[in-house]
């Protein structure tokens, strides 16, 4: 039970998931912002009410 494999994989996938998900939101936000700018939108600051 002292095999470091499980700890390395556990903390590794957790951090990888955090970094990947944050990066994915950033990428999609940039893409949406540039598309909105192209269509004369307000870059998401007042769409839903």
């Amino acid at each position, binding site marked *: *039970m*002292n*095999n*470091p494999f*499980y*700890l390395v*994989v*556990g*903390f590794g*996938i*957790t*951090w990888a*998931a*955090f970094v990947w*998900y*944050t990066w994915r*939101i*950033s990428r*999609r*936000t940039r893409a*949406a*912002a540039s*598309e*909105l700018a192209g*269509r004369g*939108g*307000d*870059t*998401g*600051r*007042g*769409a*839903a*009410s």
Partner: protein
Amino acid sequence: MSGGGRALGWVAFAALLVGSFAALFIVPADAAQGEVQRILYIHVPSAWVAMLAFFIVFLMSALYLVQRRLRWDLIAASAVEIGVMFTGLTLALGMLWGKPTWGVWWVWDPRLTTTAILFVIYVGYLLVRSVSEDPDQRARWSAVIGIVAFVQVPVVYLSVFWWRSIHQPPSSPRSMASEFFLVLMLNFAAFTLFYIYLMMRRYRLAKMELELELKEPSRE
């Protein structure tokens, strides 16, 4: 992203770093389980954030059905996506902890089974959203699922009390030494801050995507 949101992101990142460092290098290893028990410090906070996210989904879904404002639907959808990620992490971390302690990656134990069902239900929520093209219809369907699905959350929590389970009961100050509990609380705080940060960013993205959807040429 506002300055406050960015600052929250950095605070959450720093808190996660400190939490992981404390879990791996400061708190002593468990006397019975050894080093692998350190997975507890990320497994339990992941489960907590997933439950918190699904509670937000429940609240926002109910609000949507009462007020019919798409804002509540977008917050609920953002929370589901994040909750699904944390539920997936909870399951993966549980398997990594289970293999060296139970001898198997997976067992059809009540806590594991109900958590897997929870995961599938909310993946279903996201699938339902992806098939509807009308924002109001999508919000209505999602709100109903978001309310009904929440029934599964207390079932997961109480499964270790209701049925015979090899999964341990919830951690508390009475069940663990204070230094272990302190590091667990530190990670709870770090994961919660990170969740709030992700929610802010994901909600902003959801608003932009809705605006784009409403501006699609086929709708004009």
